[in-house]
């Protein structure tokens, strides 16, 4: 009953508060524009938008950010389908069949399927988020310091076990994040660590300028570095796309999509809830599953099911990736760490007590994801029919310059302090270098947030357990989390053995 009441409060905060609804729609459109532009993604848009939310009510701030996150995930499919260039990593798989459909003159239908599938995935994920997060948070209220310590360990284990790419680079990213987290005054002895006599480092590295730097400024430097000498960027990125009009799947098609949406939403929700797993894992898994389910179809040749599955899965990840953040205070991916940054600006901290102390804000965020998923359909319709072709022709030189202006202004506004601009620029350069050497940002950001938590809970656990760590094994939740950590750590071994078996 209480949950229904909270849902009602959240939904009324979104649907019955005109400014929140307007910001949500604006955020969804902005997210779609950003998502459609290759090279830009939701963390960039969100990081420059966070300082703008500074003077807003927390609910309004979360509405615009939820809109951006949801919109950009769906918007990535536009350039994937029209240009075969994924706007975001979440739309990589959509290009396989989506662009083939476009080449066969069914681009409008591909975009229609993409938006309807995103709506389905998004709505289901918002409901799952609303049902699971408060439940997990209620269980987590029973957690003591040892449980939180094991939770942090599990977060790291899932990053190592579930991430894509080379494990050595994932672990290095995590260690860099941990190193960043120990800068400043230590939580126990109060001594200065790695501050090098700089006052600005005493409080540690501020999260939002760091994210603005890594995602915003880093991407701009990266775009500049890709520029060919003596050639204008606009020539390199000039795209010519035919204007398309959105077409929606008919009743029969929707009926055939139902089982695909069901399995893709399950995949998206499960993968999204695991810290560090990310959207790419979910979309490939969903695509793989639909290929197994529909063996009668030739995927990669313009099959509508090949668009429906990944688009449903990626929007399912959006909502479910908020479960660890809202319930446990652990950001599962870069986008959710930006939500954490936005909430910190408003003096709010996620975690088990979030649903007790700020339940209205928590349910407003859940309702915002629900509303943004519904809003995807009309916003995508307007975007595809009237704006997409113009957006895809935007001049990147101007766009990068303007984003940089927003980045430096946003960094300053976070703390009304010009040292925050310095932080953003330094992390922009670091982000650029790490990107070039393919060090992933996700584990780094997660470790930065979890690092301080890990150290504090380690100290508290030592006190609680009187220095006897075997006491952890007498705590059932700790044992459960430990087993989960072992499970995640064994995942790469499983992949390795599978690969080896396949090789033979």
């Amino acid at each position, binding site marked *: 009953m209480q949950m229904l009441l909270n849902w009602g409060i959240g939904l009324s905060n979104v649907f019955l508060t005109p400014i929140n609804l307007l910001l949500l729609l604006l955020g969804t459109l902005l997210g779609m524009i950003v998502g459609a532009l290759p090279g830009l993604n939701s963390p960039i848009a969100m990081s420059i938008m966070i300082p703008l939310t500074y003077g807003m009510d927390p609910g309004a701030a979360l509405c615009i950010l939820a809109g951006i996150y949801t919109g950009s995930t769906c918007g990535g499919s536009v350039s994937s389908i029209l240009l075969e260039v994924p706007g975001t990593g979440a739309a990589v798989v959509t290009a396989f069949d989506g662009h083939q459909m476009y080449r066969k003159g069914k681009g409008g239908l591909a975009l229609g399927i993409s938006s309807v599938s995103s709506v389905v995935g998004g709505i289901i994920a918002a409901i799952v988020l609303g049902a699971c997060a408060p439940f997990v948070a209620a269980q987590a209220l029973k957690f003591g310091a040892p449980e939180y310590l094991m939770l942090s360990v599990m977060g790291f284990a899932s990053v190592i076990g579930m991430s894509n790419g080379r494990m050595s680079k994932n672990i290095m990213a995590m260690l860099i994040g941990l190193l960043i987290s120990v800068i400043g005054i230590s939580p126990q002895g109060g001594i200065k660590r790695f501050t090098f006599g700089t006052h600005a480092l005493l409080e540690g590295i501020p999260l939002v300028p760091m994210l603005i730097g890594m995602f915003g400024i880093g991407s701009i430097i990266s775009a500049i570095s890709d520029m060919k000498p003596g050639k204008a960027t606009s020539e390199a990125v000039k795209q010519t796309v035919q204007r398309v009009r959105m077409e929606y799947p008919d009743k029969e098609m929707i009926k055939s999509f139902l089982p695909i949406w069901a399995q893709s939403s399950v995949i998206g929700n499960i993968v999204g809830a695991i810290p560090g797993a990310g959207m790419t894992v979910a979309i490939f898994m969903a695509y793989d599953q639909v290929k197994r389910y529909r063996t009668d179809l030739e995927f990669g040749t313009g099959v509508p099911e090949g668009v429906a599955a990944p688009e449903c899965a990626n929007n399912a990840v959006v909502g479910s990736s908020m479960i660890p953040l809202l319930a446990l205070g652990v950001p599962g991916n870069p986008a959710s760490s930006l939500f954490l940054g936005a909430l910190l600006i408003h003096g709010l901290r996620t975690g088990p007590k979030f649903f007790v102390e700020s339940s209205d804000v928590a349910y407003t965020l859940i309702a915002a994801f629900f509303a943004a998923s519904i809003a995807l359909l009309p916003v995508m319709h307007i975007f595809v029919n009237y704006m997409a072709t113009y957006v895809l022709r935007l001049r990147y030189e101007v766009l990068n310059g*303007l984003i940089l202006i927003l980045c430096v202004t946003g960094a300053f506004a976070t703390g009304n302090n010009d040292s925050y*601009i310095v932080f953003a620029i330094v992390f922009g350069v670091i982000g650029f270098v790490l990107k070039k050497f393919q060090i992933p940002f996700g584990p780094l950001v997660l470790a930065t947030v979890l690092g301080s938590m890990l150290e504090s809970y380690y100290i508290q656990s030592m006190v609680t357990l009187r220095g006897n760590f075997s006491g952890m094994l007498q705590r059932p939740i700790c044992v459960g989390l430990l087993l989960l950590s072992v499970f995640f750590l064994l995942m790469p071994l499983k992949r390795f053995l599978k690969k080896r078996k396949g090789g033979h």
Partner: protein
Amino acid sequence: MKKNKYVEYLFSLVLLAIGAAVVIIGKDFRGNDKYFPVIIGAGMVITAVWMAWDDRKQDTACIDLAKINFAAVGITIVALAIYIALFRLIGYVLSTILLGSSIILGLRYNSLKGAIFWPALMVLIVFVIFRILLKVPLPVLLLQGGESICRCC
């Protein structure tokens, strides 16, 4: 090709050096405050060696130096460094317009008017939102007078 591989090894070496420095600095911290930095530093050293070992097994390097426009990156970083200095000297409005214009021109946008107009318009919009609506004290020294608000030095 070989150069790319060497740079990849060099990157691992830099990370190894950072890890070693973290261990050396960290072990001097008092009491329990030293454990985490030392563990992190040692982890970085081990992982850097692991990364180099992985690099050795890969046929191609993850980085392609030929595709990086070092001159443009250098100019951008210098422009950002100058921006920080100018921000303190001439305030937000002018320095940010200059930064935006220089980046747009640096990316070889072919219209000087556009390169000045778009950043100026963006700064104006952002200024109105932050300074007037959100009451963020963006420094506007040359336009309004006042003192620098540098707090980091």
